[in-house]
């Protein structure tokens, strides 16, 4: 297993040195370093990996493949470029060209099957530098220019530039129907394709190319495994790995290890080679249980071996630099109504706990039937910073029933994925198309007032105009998304995903574009609800109640970023009349804003045979859109971050955790069916011991009982975080929740760390 790439530290910076032709280019390195969420760039290269733990930690942080088996990423990029050029010259259908790109990687990339690991390795390890990404980007430029009307593109661009919204074509939120493809395995998927395919039809030809490449890829792993086994005949791990790959080459998974291997293969085929994200790794305990029980009954494995395989399975994603984390579904309810948490759940939680990984993150489905031991174990892990969130089965079912007419069984088998999302398994190839900035209409209205172009005589008319503009922006966002989603299959045909979706094969539709039985959903996300409510209440207080300033002068103060008005700014910043304190006026205003946003979105048809859904989380847009938003009357300065998800503005929730939960009861997952999340930061003193566990569980249960869909905890004191900032070397494994995902503390920027410390200080205030 030769190493051909080396990184060196030069004067504190990282540089790549080409030890052979297989190294990343300097330009590529620079690109990666500019990418804030790529946390691989500063990792030290490990020259000679001799133990399993180092191997799995480094596996997706550097190239660990056997260079003699195939091509590295730069070489693959050249191959793909050639395929695209010749396909274009021959007038080949794009999806066939893309299938060939996939096949070239599966059949020619460098690989390895190491005795140090339970899973294969591939040279396309870096999710920020995949050969297929450039191909898709280039194709998107061409297709969008040719097929999306110029007026739409211009409106889209302008909104992105001025911070009205942030929108993009999304290929990152899809999940295959694991329940359908696991019993088939790859050969079963091929057989199903054969039943549906029409000879000479390029749609099916492209699927066939991808299918054969998947199988050829497995053949290559088997051959490499056997080669390494010959030189490591004592390696039980390697022997088992080859046996598993051979079983998967011949049919459906037989053992629990086969299931993990199948998930591994499909994930990397789809996400790393085909450029379509695989945004959930199954409901892990539910899927593994029958296989594991059969393995134990047949004496095929031991619990110890299963634990080691699980550890390596989780570490595959623990090693990948995925800022957003890789979700794993967990728990839930069995068909007979009993809880799905069982002996396998315990083992998986134990292993996850021991690994202490930021990712994969566990999205745990909980319900009244969830046993006490599972609650205690998961909450205990959450308070020790393990990456785990709690999704309520009951509130999510209400939302799915309302917007999809889902049955109880549909809801029971829902997929949990992404940051906090839930969706039916036969509609799970959905997208997050746009983020609407709730602050922007206020900024524009005050700007118009400051220039004498508009005025509103009372707060009611100001509020009505705000809601009208928010509705306009949301509608525009939806209309733009409708247009740019028409061309998704033209840009990035999803051959792997189509092979995994029977409905798509039978109806000759691209699975990602519009091939799910219920159509594919498109989500539009809310950004800055809390700050918008605070800002509206501040306008009311300053301009209409106390009449300290006219609307025009308030607009002027905002344009001047509060200069000359520091006393007023501080007062507004510290006003108790804010979203998050269960203040009835703030709650009512928040509900009106949410309802206005949701009414423009929910249930409206999209271009993918499905519907639009309003969503309450905003990923990282509370920072990015904050940077594009001027000062606001709640005391926020220009460019500062705005409130995250449905949470209060940082520092605004002075009434504590219970008031915060009750504030969010102002609406529910039925109104925001994309998700209705609550990020809750708690001081360690309220989480100690059994009392702490009970308190945390009560918060989750009341939130779910009030219609919230998912809650996650961050448990830190400001002192602890300050110490971590000062002594990063002592906190290598410290993780914090960002927004539905965990990030290692040391991977956050100084600015983000400071923001976290301020949050923790705010939590401290009540103690």
């Amino acid at each position, binding site marked *: 297993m030769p190493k051909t790439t080396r990184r060196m530290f030069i004067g504190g910076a990282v540089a790549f040195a080409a030890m052979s032709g297989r190294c990343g280019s300097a330009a590529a390195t620079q690109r990666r370093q500019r990418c804030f969420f790529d946390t691989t760039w500063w990792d030290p290269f490990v020259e000679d990996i001799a133990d399993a733990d180092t191997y799995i930690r480094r596996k997706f942080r550097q190239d660990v493949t056997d260079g003699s088996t195939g091509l590295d990423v730069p070489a693959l990029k050249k191959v793909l470029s050639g395929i695209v050029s010749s396909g274009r010259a021959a007038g080949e259908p794009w999806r066939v060209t893309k299938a060939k790109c996939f096949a070239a990687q599966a059949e020619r990339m460098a690989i390895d099957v190491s005795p140090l690991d339970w899973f294969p390795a591939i040279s396309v390890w870096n999710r920020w530098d995949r050969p297929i990404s450039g191909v898709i980007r280039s194709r998107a430029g061409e297709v969008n220019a040719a097929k999306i009307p110029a007026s739409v593109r211009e409106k889209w661009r302008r909104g992105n530039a001025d911070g009205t919204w942030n929108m993009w074509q999304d290929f990152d939120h899809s999940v295959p129907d694991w329940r359908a493809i696991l019993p088939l395995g790859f050969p079963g998927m091929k057989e199903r394709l054969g039943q549906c395919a029409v000879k000479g039809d390029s749609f099916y030809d492209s699927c066939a190319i991808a299918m054969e490449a998947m199988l050829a890829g497995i053949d290559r792993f088997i051959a490499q495994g056997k080669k390494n086994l010959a030189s490591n005949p004592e390696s039980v791990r390697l022997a088992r790995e080859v046996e598993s790959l051979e079983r998967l080459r011949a049919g459906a998974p037989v053992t629990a290890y086969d299931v993990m291997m199948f998930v591994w293969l499909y994930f990397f085929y789809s996400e790393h080679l085909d450029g379509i994200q695989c945004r959930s790794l199954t409901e892990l305990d539910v899927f593994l249980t029958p296989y594991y029980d059969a393995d134990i009954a047949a004496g095929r494995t031991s619990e110890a071996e299963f634990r080691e395989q699980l550890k390596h399975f989780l570490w595959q994603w623990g090693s990948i630099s995925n800022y957003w984390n890789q979700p794993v579904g967990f728990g839930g309810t069995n068909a007979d109504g009993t809880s799905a948490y069982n002996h396998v759940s315990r083992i998986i939680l134990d292993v996850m706990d021991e690994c202490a990984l930021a990712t994969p993150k566990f999205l745990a489905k909980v319900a009244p039937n969830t046993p006490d031991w599972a609650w205690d174990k998961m909450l205990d892990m959450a308070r020790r910073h393990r990456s785990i969130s709690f999704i309520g089965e009951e509130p999510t079912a209400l939302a799915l029933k309302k917007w999809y007419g889902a049955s109880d069984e549909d809801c029971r088998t829902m997929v949990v994925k992404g940051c906090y999302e839930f969706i039916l398994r036969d509609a799970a190839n959905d997208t997050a198309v746009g983020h609407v900035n709730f602050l922007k209409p206020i900024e524009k209205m005050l700007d118009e007032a400051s220039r004498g172009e508009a005025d509103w005589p009372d707060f009611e008319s100001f509020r009505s105009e705000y809601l009208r503009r928010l509705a306009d922006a949301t509608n525009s966002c939806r209309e733009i998304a409708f247009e740019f989603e028409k061309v998704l299959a033209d840009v990035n045909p999803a051959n792997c995903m189509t092979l995994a979706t029977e409905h798509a094969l039978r109806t000759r539709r691209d699975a990602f574009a519009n091939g799910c039985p219920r159509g594919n959903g498109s989500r539009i996300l809310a950004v800055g609800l809390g700050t918008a409510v605070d800002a509206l209440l501040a306008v009311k207080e300053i301009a209409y109640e106390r009449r300290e300033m006219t609307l025009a002068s308030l607009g002027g103060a905002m344009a001047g970023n509060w200069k000359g008005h*520091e006393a*007023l700014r501080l007062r507004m910043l510290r006003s108790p009349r804010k979203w998050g304190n269960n203040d009835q006026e703030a709650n009512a205003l928040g509900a009106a804003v949410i309802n206005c946003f949701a009414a423009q979105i929910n249930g409206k048809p999209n271009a993918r045979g499905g519907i639009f859904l309003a969503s309450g989380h905003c990923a990282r847009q509370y920072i990015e859109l904050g940077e594009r938003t001027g000062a606001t009357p709640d005391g926020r300065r220009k460019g500062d971050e705005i409130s995250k998800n449905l949470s209060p503005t940082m520092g605004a929730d002075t*009434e504590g*955790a*219970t008031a915060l939960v*009750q504030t969010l009861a102002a609406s529910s997952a039925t109104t925001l069916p994309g998700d209705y999340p609550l990020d809750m930061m708690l001081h360690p*003193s309220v989480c100690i011991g059994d009392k702490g566990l009970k308190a945390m569980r*009560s918060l989750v249960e009341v939130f779910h009982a*009030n219609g919230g869909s998912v809650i996650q905890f961050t448990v830190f004191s400001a002192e602890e975080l300050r110490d971590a900032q000062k002594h990063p070397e002592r906190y290598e494994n410290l993780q914090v929740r960002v927004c539905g995902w965990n990030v290692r503390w040391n991977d956050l920027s100084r600015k983000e760390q400071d923001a976290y410390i301020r949050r923790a200080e705010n939590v401290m205030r009540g103690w």
Partner: protein
Amino acid sequence: MKTPLMLDTKRMAIWDGPGIRTTFFVKGCPLKCIWCHNPESIDSGAQWARFRHLCMRHERCTMDESTCPTRALKLYGKEMSIDAIVAKALEDKPFYDRSGGGVTLSGGEPLFFWQWAAELFKAFKAAGLHTCLDTSLYAPPAAIDALLPVTDMWLPDYKAHDDALHMKFTGVSNSIIRRNLERLVAVGAKIEVRCLAVPGCTDGADIAARRAWLNSIGVDDSSIVDLEYFDYARSKYLALGMPDTMPPKKTD
């Protein structure tokens, strides 16, 4: 009936009795503990505090808490009716129901206003709320009589066993407190006694003496909680213009 001014309301309190609780603090206390971490709770009248480190010395300072930009001005002690207190407590009832929690009355010294406290607790019970009383037990027997039927759990402090120490550091004898503790134990009231070891004051032999006496009257160890001392309240003494009497916390 003496009615107290209210100091503060703390929601999501999990260390003031079982489950998630809301704790209400009254203003006014007959004791003068030198280590008091709520010096604003000693005087029963309203008090202004000015936190100098927060004050921006605004040229147009109106001395109005609601408009102070930095919250440097704080008015301690506000009127709050029993109905308003119960309404506030009920906001978190779903959390009490899930966690086995309820309401706690603290201070100051709630039994300084025992007739009012009994009325409040009756209202809490009528609303179906679990009640805890955080008290020094420095109160007449009539106060215990009035509160016993409506108090689900008592959280008494036992500050010092040696009466000379008690006198020296709190300003009052502990004889009344001991009689009330004995009474609560005798009638089978549910109690959790809190013992604070203050460096240089009550951290010596008195710790063992307190526990031994409590055991002797029938308080078992599981009902005794040792509390850690912190000296975090110095800024409040300064803001109130009170002499800072807090002993320093010993550091290792």
